[in-house]
């Protein structure tokens, strides 16, 4: 991989970042529901108080001045104060990051392991009932809205079987629990959301792994290996898989960025106290600084993971020159 490729990709990422900042700023300025009217709920508040509020949040300055302040403060990690929580946005987000990382991380690991494995099996046994079954499964999970899958999970495991909790991250009765008791309580609450998210992700991983492996298996060097007399297992492990894994690596890198936003549906259904749910609540409360902060962070994540996946691709597949 040459330096030109890296520099180019880095440059593009910076331009995308500027675009995101621009959209992010203007989108939230033209939203209805003046934030001051949300802050000053008292109808008897006099104009002076309202003006003071506006000044406190910098809403009295011109749009251009607001933009300059906005960009410079974004880069030092100052996302302002949340209207609703009356705390720094960074702190509000920071409190929720762990829940999302726990949920998404666990789901990703499960989805990657099972998706890759099923994809290999399906490609290897192409055309058999197993392959058709795996394909149908991924088609159905793709066609299903994630939130509805979550509802089905709740209906079955909590409603019908009555074995798992429906929402939240901890039981109210164990609010003050510590150590192992708290960990196991969280684990029990984690099962359904993780299962839902993993099922949603799994289908795509399986499909990509399958088609990538099938494509590699038609390459000439696989035929050569076969002619040399290697058995199926060696060909699969030593010759086909290393190349077939390349699209998987980039897909995983890319999907990590999207998944924070994608967890929104699952977090909403299960009332999981993560970033997705926070964003949904911020939208209901017209909490601009908070929304902007989450929007900025999720966009940054996708830009970052896109860049990583591009670089990874260039590194793993030397044929990529452009």
């Amino acid at each position, binding site marked *: 991989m040459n330096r030109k490729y890296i520099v180019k990709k880095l440059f593009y990422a910076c331009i995308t970042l500027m*675009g995101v900042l621009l959209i992010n700023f203007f*989108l939230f300025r033209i939203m209805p529901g003046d934030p001051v009217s949300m802050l000053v709920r008292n109808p008897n508040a006099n104009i002076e108080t309202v003006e003071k509020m506006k000044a406190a949040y910098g809403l009295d300055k011109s749009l251009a001045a607001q933009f300059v302040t906005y960009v410079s403060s974004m880069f030092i990690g100052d996302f302002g104060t949340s209207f609703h929580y009356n705390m720094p946005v960074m702190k509000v987000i920071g409190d929720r990051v762990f829940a999302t990382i726990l949920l998404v991380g666990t789901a990703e690991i499960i989805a990657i392991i099972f998706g890759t494995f099923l994809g290999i099996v399906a490609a290897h046994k192409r055309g058999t009932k197993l392959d058709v079954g795996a394909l149908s499964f991924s088609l*159905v999970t793709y066609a299903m809205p994630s939130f509805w899958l979550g*509802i089905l999970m709740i209906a079955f495991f909590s*409603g019908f079987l009555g074995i798992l909790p429906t929402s939240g991250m901890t039981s109210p009765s164990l609010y003050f629990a510590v150590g192992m008791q708290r960990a196991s309580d969280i684990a029990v609450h984690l099962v359904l959301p993780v299962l839902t998210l993993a099922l949603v992700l799994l289908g795509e991983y399986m499909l990509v792994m399958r088609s990538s492996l099938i494509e590699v298996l038609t390459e000439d060097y696989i035929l050569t290996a076969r002619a040399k007399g290697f058995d199926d297992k060696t060909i699969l492990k030593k010759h086909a898989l290393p190349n077939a894994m390349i699209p998987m690596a980039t897909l995983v890198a890319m999907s990590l960025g999207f998944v924070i936003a994608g967890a929104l549906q699952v977090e909403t259904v299960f009332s999981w106290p993560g970033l997705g749910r926070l964003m949904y609540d911020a939208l209901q409360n017209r909490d601009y600084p908070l*929304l902007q902060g989450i929007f900025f962070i999720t966009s940054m994540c996708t830009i970052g993971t896109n860049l990583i996946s591009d670089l990874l691709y260039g590194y793993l597949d030397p044929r990529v020159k452009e």
Partner: protein
Amino acid sequence: MKENQFIKQFLKNKMGVVGFSMLVIFILIALFGPMIVQYDPQVFGERADVLNPPSAAHWLGTDDLGRDVFKALIAGSRVSLIVGVAATFISMFIGTSVGIFSGYLGGKTDNVLMRITDVFLVLPWLPLMLVLAALLGSNIWNIIFVIGITGWAGTARIVRAQTLTEKERQYIERSKSFGASNLFIIWHHIFPNVFPLVFANTILVTATSILSETTLSFLGMGDVSKPSWGTTLHFAFESGALSNKAYWYFMPPGVCVLLLVLAFTLMGFALDEIVNPKLRQR
């Protein structure tokens, strides 16, 4: 590819035929269903009608306001289909134009258009749609617009790649030497050649658009006066149908979405195999 040949190949593809039949059924329901079954979301039932299980009078039971769930499904089919198809039309129009102009003109235009595409690819789509829907207000046209404007970036990339290979063909060079204008070449040579790919992509984007509409409506951004399947699911979830074990309320709309999206996905996969000769050999 000749049209006859195309139809023959499509009919040979099991997935395609199954998907197409399912879609035809849904279209017939959406077209004629609301004429036969009258449904007004503003008319609520009596106290005794609330959350009744399926019966002869109400085939799929009633919801938390005593309305007939089956009738709501029939009415919703029209909304879900119209929003999905109309939003896809916007996406395809933007995506195809950007892709063709970017690929064909190259240079600075290409660079600028592709950077804009990058931004749209990177912005988290669901939050962006939610924010836009909240900004514009929840009526059906705004929802169509929001889904359409956020979903074109992938198409633009695919069309651009195809345009790049198409414009290297010799006949394009020759047309140019005869003095054909850029717009003429794009319209008469490039567009017909990328069209099969655009068509296959359209079907798959429709599946995504229908899912997007359902999700937006479920999250409370739907048009309440024209309830779609997603809107019904929103009210089912909010009213606690889940804890009341009112399966007839929250199961059917989800199954409908699943089947409709599946119909489009199956057709899309079949078309992809036909227009992508590389896939066909496998």
